[in-house]
């Protein structure tokens, strides 16, 4: 069992080398790209504005984690698969701009998700590149999954899976999910939930539990 239980997992998809990390990111080695999805920064602030007191520390935690993976992988580029920022502008966006400034020499690309509704000008004042989708090599990156001839990576649904045991034990955990032609990336942000997916036959799941990845073939 030991070989499919670690904090990182190497994977060859369409001839490309990917590293899955239990901190909910994928590192694409050939292009030195860090792929992650659904940060939902600013969600705490959005709730506060509506009178629901959620501490911004929740997102400071997210950014700290992101800094950790950046210093670990030393990427040339970070690719956000959408829902980077949760809603209208609030001061937590400024925190994120500060964070981006500290990532010298790292290209930032955002594929717009349904939550990314900031005004164009706000994005333009940073070095964040905005697009609706990205096709590169064998891959097609989108926020919501699409039918495509390329291999599709998407986020959006915050994939998770329910595990069950013989003696009725169970747990719902976030996961990476790979099918023959597409993959789902887990939500990176801490202030997010998990949507239970129904895995298809022949798919490959990597469950994330306490900083460890488990490979499962349903």
């Amino acid at each position, binding site marked *: 069992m030991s070989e499919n239980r670690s904090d990182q997992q190497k994977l060859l998809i369409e001839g490309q080398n990917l590293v899955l990390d239990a901190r909910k990111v994928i590192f694409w080695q050939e292009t030195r790209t860090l792929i992650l999805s659904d940060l939902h920064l600013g969600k705490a602030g959005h*709730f506060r504005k509506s009178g629901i007191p*959620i501490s911004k520390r929740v997102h400071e935690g997210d950014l700290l984690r992101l800094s950790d993976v950046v210093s670990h992988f030393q990427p040339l580029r970070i690719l956000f698969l959408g829902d980077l920022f949760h809603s209208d502008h609030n001061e937590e966006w400024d925190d994120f701009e500060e964070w981006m400034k500290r990532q010298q020499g790292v290209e930032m690309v955002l594929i717009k998700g349904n939550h990314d509704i900031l005004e164009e000008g706000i994005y333009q004042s940073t070095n964040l590149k905005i697009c609706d989708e990205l096709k590169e090599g064998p891959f097609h990156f989108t926020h919501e999954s699409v039918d495509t001839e390329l291999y599709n990576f998407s986020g959006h649904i915050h994939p998770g899976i329910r595990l069950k045991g013989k003696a009725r034990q169970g*747990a719902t955990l976030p996961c990476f999910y790979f099918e023959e032609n597409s993959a789902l990336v887990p939500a990176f942000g801490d202030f997010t939930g998990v949507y239970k997916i129904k895995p298809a036959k022949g798919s490959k799941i990597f469950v994330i539990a306490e900083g460890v990845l488990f490979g499962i073939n349903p």
Partner: protein
Amino acid sequence: MGSGLNETLLLVQSEIIQIGKDWFTSRGWKAFPFQEECWNAYLEGKSGLLNAPTGSGKTYALWIPCILEFLRDHDKANVTPGVRVLWVTPLRALAKDIHRAMQEVCDELDLRWTIGLRTGDTTATERQSQKKKAPQALVITPESLHVLLSQTDYPNYLKGIQVVIADEWHEILGTKRGVALELAISRIKTLTDHQLKIWGISATIGNLPQAKRVLLGEGMHKSGVIIQSNIEKKVEVVSVLPDEVEKFPWSGHLGTALLPKIVPIINASKTTLLFTNTRSQTELWYQKLVQFAPELSGLIAMHHGSIEQDIRNWVEDALHAEKLKVVVCTSSLDLGVDFRPVDTVIQVGGPKGVSRFFQRAGRSGHRPGEVSKIYFVPTHSLELVEGAALRKAIEEKRFESRKPLEKCMDVLVQYLVTLAVSGGFRPLDILEEIKQTYCYRLLHSEEWGWALDFITTGGKTLGEYDEYAKVYQEDGIYKIINKRAATRHKLSIGTIVGDPALKVRFMTGGYIGTVEESFISRLNPGDRFWFAGKNLEFVMIKDMTVLVKKSNRKSGRTPVWGGGRLPLSSMLSDVIREKLEASANGDFHDVEMKTIKPILDLQAKWSQVPDRHTLLIEKAKSKFGNHVFFYPFEGLYVHEVLAGVVALRVSRITPITFSMSMNDYGFELLSDQEIPIEEALELDLFSEEGIMEDVQHSINQTEMAKRKFRDVATIAGLIFQGYPGKNIRARHLQASTGILYKVFETYDKENLLIQQAMDEVMTMQLEHSRLFEAIRRINAQKIVLMDTKSPTPFAFPIVVDTIRRQNLSSEQLIDRVTKMQMQLEKLAENS
């Protein structure tokens, strides 16, 4: 003070009373002594509590003196607008009936009073006209009362109130709606410049004096009176017995096997109410009855809280009009409204409490002195013990108490924001008022400070909340400036929290009712389910509405609505233990006990039937793994916590993962590995040392606190349930309470709402000391561990029909996942 003046007053009083008596005579009635007693006490300016059952004329006991008081103090022709009487009722359905009765009296006495009706159903036009020209009496629900308090001109509107009357107070007491009413009364007391009268009407419960104290408040309760109707209700409990107990199914949606015995009872009666414990059981019984006795179709109806209001109204009207032979219902028909044609009551499944059962029995045979017969239909054979226990408890008049709530921070937060919306409040004034309520009489200044901080800055530890928009302080007055926040708050007033409910509609139009989101999310288009007695095909969800079409199939799932299950009351569990002990000593004089003798004999043969001085534990193996069963007979919730504590303590011996199940009689620990129960018992499994910490840990682990937090968070305004009647949810504002709980626990540990969720588990669910009494009792008991080959008759219901909870584990999540994964793979190989 000459005695002459007193005599004049007395004379006036008796003359006034005579008007009431004459009205009774004009109807061919005669006032009961308790009614006259109420009239007198009221006219003397007293407050108090009336203990009287439904159908006894309790409304007239308190409505008549409201009118008599006016006739005494005013010129009958000189009726000015202004609310004098606030009649608070827990149910909208009740409000209508009360309203009708009240208006009738006024009309017949030729008094030009308007009686207003103010519930969630009241239209905007009606509300406007009530605002312009205030009625003399207002029938209102606790929620609508708080909506009134959120309107700017409320002080003027409410200052003329003479009396607040809380109908069915036993139903509201012990709930957050009760707390909401306590708060509203504390406000009205200050608004009125005369001595406000407060009256409650309650069915029989174990703590009437306390019920009076909570309603009247700290300053007033000592001078309040308790008036009892002394109308003796005779109740006969008849259990419906299976012919052969061995063939009688163990559990599940059973009891329907007894239909051949139930239908004759229905046929022999004019009108029958068949009570079940949950809405899903109601659906099921309705189906089965129609299938088994097709002759009933057209004469049978169903009534539960998720069915559309119009249908429910129709059922109620049809009941009055004697058009129905039987109505299958839940507690939605428990209250108040008096259905005269009902002469038979059937209870399916243990009612879990003596008071509730007694009140349901009272729905038949309304005339004083008549015997109310109630049939008890067990859903599994062991439940027959409850039939015997209920009879004994009623004979001995052992009724449960309704424990009032204390220090509900969520309701307080909501109330303060309500006052901030309607023009603002001065903290010290409000603090003084709420210290007069029972709920907040012991509120510390730190807790008060926390509540103020919470609504202004978001809480002390979260001072960085610059953008936080709620309540602002200006010249010592706390108020809301943000209009949107104010509107959002007004729409969220209330303390009844349910799962998010979706409307169910036919494709062709036509509203049927609501189902919980969690049920519908498990269905795929094309799946069939039973609802409101109809077989429906799920088509799709659109705009927060479940679209369905009719299906002619006979199969399909039944929706499960949350929160349906009540735990066995501690009163009833005492009596059950007594009954079991009696049977262990060979006493089978109750017909129920005689019927289940074969089962008890089998239990004794395989294991044993415990007496009151024994805690029975059983060990068994099955294909699922290793089981250990415990039988404390303490009710569902206590078992849930006990299971967690026991699991935690066993896991200190070895890393192990349990799944836990429980019912009202006992609980089960199940693991895929050997459970070292002998060793755990030697190490004193139930020791009181460190019990507090272990209980807290267990409550956290078993997610009881998380479940409570859902309600707390909603009431305190952390979760916005959307705009009623509109299919829009606030943009980007959804977060499940699970996520919020996690966030608060990690980043805002001091939050009193988290603390309250924990306290609610301890006090509301576990009834204060019940858990510790249980542990103390266990420690005084002899513990007997039996090794059994397979689950015993006691164990079987826990295995097959039970509430299952998330597992508790001392293993690393990593190890657990490894194990589950191995089993997943094994399963795949096998298949």
